[in-house]
């Protein structure tokens, strides 16, 4: 079994699906000959030809809109938005078209497509290469929202997303493309090869959408996280010696509510962790759901560890990023009450 980092795993997912389904086409800015600024699409144009893998004009709106037309035709577009921070020019087409076409046509037309985009901070990318805008998509009925947190899931979820009948916004945590990051930015980065989830089977497999993964079992606290924060959360609970159950949500919409309820009913405490700004982040929805559905099991308020309600400030990367210190305080708080 090859050992893959996330980029290689995502690349392989493209290859597997493109080989199986001639209707899968891939386009986006710089993704053709060059293979994408993060190299996720490397080699695809060579293997599958220029009319299935090609560079697009710098027009996120146009990329999404033409993908809508292609999906209407019967193709399965897999498009890349170079950074999630640049998805907004395509927001109208995503919200008003991609998300609503199945519904407004009573399923006469469907919009199977995947919109891949690297997101998240921790790379000194400043305001426009660090954002985590996932909650802006979770509010839009008709979209699925997926965030892998390791190479195995990245490949399996991307294949599942491409094969899914519905449009999927596929957020890739760029901070962990090359290795899991536990939030200790001052320590050397570990490569994926040391992580069990880097063992990525060859060929076709899927990780189903809508299913969370319990990445650490525990009795005293439920931690809900996705993307990079899964690894930060895992490291923190270990460091704090808390017997926490850490759940990697993997899919935000549709949410694996059963896994969450099961865990919180067991632990009675819950901490939600995300990189995005706090106010109206997806953590708010999770807190609301947990308190609505597990109120009488809760021994303490559900806590949130999040980014601040500010734009992402370049030099203050590590004061902004919800790292081990913010985790520690929150863990102490939620366990104390």
């Amino acid at each position: 079994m090859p050992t893959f980092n996330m980029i290689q795993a995502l690349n392989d997912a493209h290859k597997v699906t493109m080989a199986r389904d001639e209707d899968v086409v891939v386009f986006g800015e710089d993704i053709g000959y060059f293979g994408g600024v993060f190299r996720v699409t490397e080699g695809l144009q060579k293997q599958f030809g220029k009319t299935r893998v090609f560079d697009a004009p710098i027009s996120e709106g146009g990329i999404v809109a033409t993908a809508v037309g292609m999906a209407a035709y019967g193709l399965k577009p897999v498009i890349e938005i170079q950074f999630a921070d640049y998805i907004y020019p395509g927001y109208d087409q995503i919200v008003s078209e991609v998300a609503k076409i199945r519904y407004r046509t009573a399923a006469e037309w469907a919009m199977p497509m995947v919109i891949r985009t690297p997101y998240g901070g921790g790379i000194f990318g400043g305001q426009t290469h660090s954002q985590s805008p996932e909650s802006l998509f979770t509010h839009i009925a008709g979209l699925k929202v997926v965030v892998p947190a390791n190479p195995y899931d990245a490949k399996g979820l991307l294949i599942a997303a491409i094969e899914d009948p519905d449009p999927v916004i596929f957020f890739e945590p760029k901070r962990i493309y090359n290795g899991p990051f536990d939030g200790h930015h001052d320590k050397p980065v570990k490569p994926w090869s040391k992580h069990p989830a880097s063992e990525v089977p060859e060929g076709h497999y899927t990780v189903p959408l809508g299913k969370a993964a319990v990445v650490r079992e525990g009795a005293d606290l439920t931690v809900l996280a996705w993307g990079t924060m899964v690894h930060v959360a895992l490291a923190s609970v270990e460091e704090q010696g808390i017997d926490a159950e850490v759940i990697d949500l993997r899919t935000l919409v549709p949410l694996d509510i059963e896994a969450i309820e099961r865990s919180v009913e067991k632990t009675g405490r819950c901490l939600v962790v995300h990189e995005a700004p706090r106010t109206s982040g997806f953590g708010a929805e999770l807190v609301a759901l947990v308190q609505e559905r597990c109120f009488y099991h809760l021994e303490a308020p559900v806590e949130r560890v999040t980014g601040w309600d500010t734009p992402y400030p370049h030099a203050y990367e590590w004061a902004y990023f919800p790292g081990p210190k913010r985790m520690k305080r929150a863990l102490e708080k939620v366990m104390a009450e």
Partner: protein
Amino acid sequence: MSQKDPNLRRNAPKLELHVPEPAFRPGDTPDFSGLNIPRAGTAPRPDTSAPATETYPLTTALVRVLGDDHRAVGPWDPKLDADTLRTMLRDMVTVRIFDDRMYRAQRQGKTSFYMKCAGEEAIAVAAAAALGREDMHFPTYRQQGLLIARGYPLTEMMCQIYSNKGDKLKGRQLPIMYSDKAHGFFSISGNLATQFPQAVGWAMASAIKGDSRIAMGWVGDGATAEGDFHSAMTFAAVYNVPVVLAAVNNQWAISSFSGIAGAERATFAQRAIGYGIAGVRVDGNDALAVYAAVKWAAERARSGHGPTLIEFFTYRAEGHSTSDDPSGYRPASEAKAWPLGDPIERLKAHLVALGEWDDDRHAAMAAQADAEVRAAQKESEKLGILPQQGKDDIESMFDDVYADVPWNLAEQRDQAVAEARD
């Protein structure tokens, strides 16, 4: 603050903001004698394989076939047989009758909203005739003529307008936001201009698959200002996409005249030049010119000569929608004064001039169309009108958000069903 700025060069000429104003406002007497309307037959017709540059003079001209004597003249004459012309005429008449009846139905409280295409009937009807059945349209809300010309059942349209039991869209869309795949009619979006680049994407897909079907995208003059217009033009140009892009310039966008979209300085057809694609400006009230231009653009697309932007120059003869009263912003008499005439009258006169039509036959045809529309209305109203809807089949509200119903929607469905029983 700006006034006190020391940077202000007090001796330099003062700048001015130009805010375009239509020629006539309520109270004015519209006078279009200054409008330059080239004679029919004068616009050249480049070969369908000509380079795009050869079409540039056409972006400021006006392709017209029907002359003042009601004869078809010049190189763009599509030389259609009389049956085809009569079919087009009948479809246009049907569209107008349909519009009138549905407008009235809205006024009678049978539905929430309606939009006519009065004065623009030739455009969609002739475009439908010129493209193949298997080609795909990405229309706006003013191309009901496409559906009627392609034979989509009037009852289906009306059921959609009434959001009733027969509405295949399950009451989910605003009236007139039709969708029918089998008739090559993509779901209309309420968001302007979104369909333009989608048409390009569909045609890209067709090209990727080595198919032979092309797409046609539609946009209004006002909506050309949206970023999506530019996306469509850019992608169409870059990938030499087999698509026909139609900008229907009916000179009004609700209350804003076309100058607010840039028409004071350039025609909409001229936008084509900026992207290096073919462009043509066409008399949209001349069914033959519309037919010829679409046919020509389609041939270019099919034979690898890429996209064409067609501006259909026309006039929105009535209000924007049932929510609009145009007498608030333009002279009530403007529609009558508009010199390119009524597309139905013009096509009729042509058939008469050919000796293929007369007033009696026209009246009979119109009566038949009227009867068909009435019958369809009766039929569809049996399935309900809007005020009666929204009470049954509440569950259906939660279908088709996704292919499957996720837990949150299932829970909400149960709630909604229970609520409906309260």
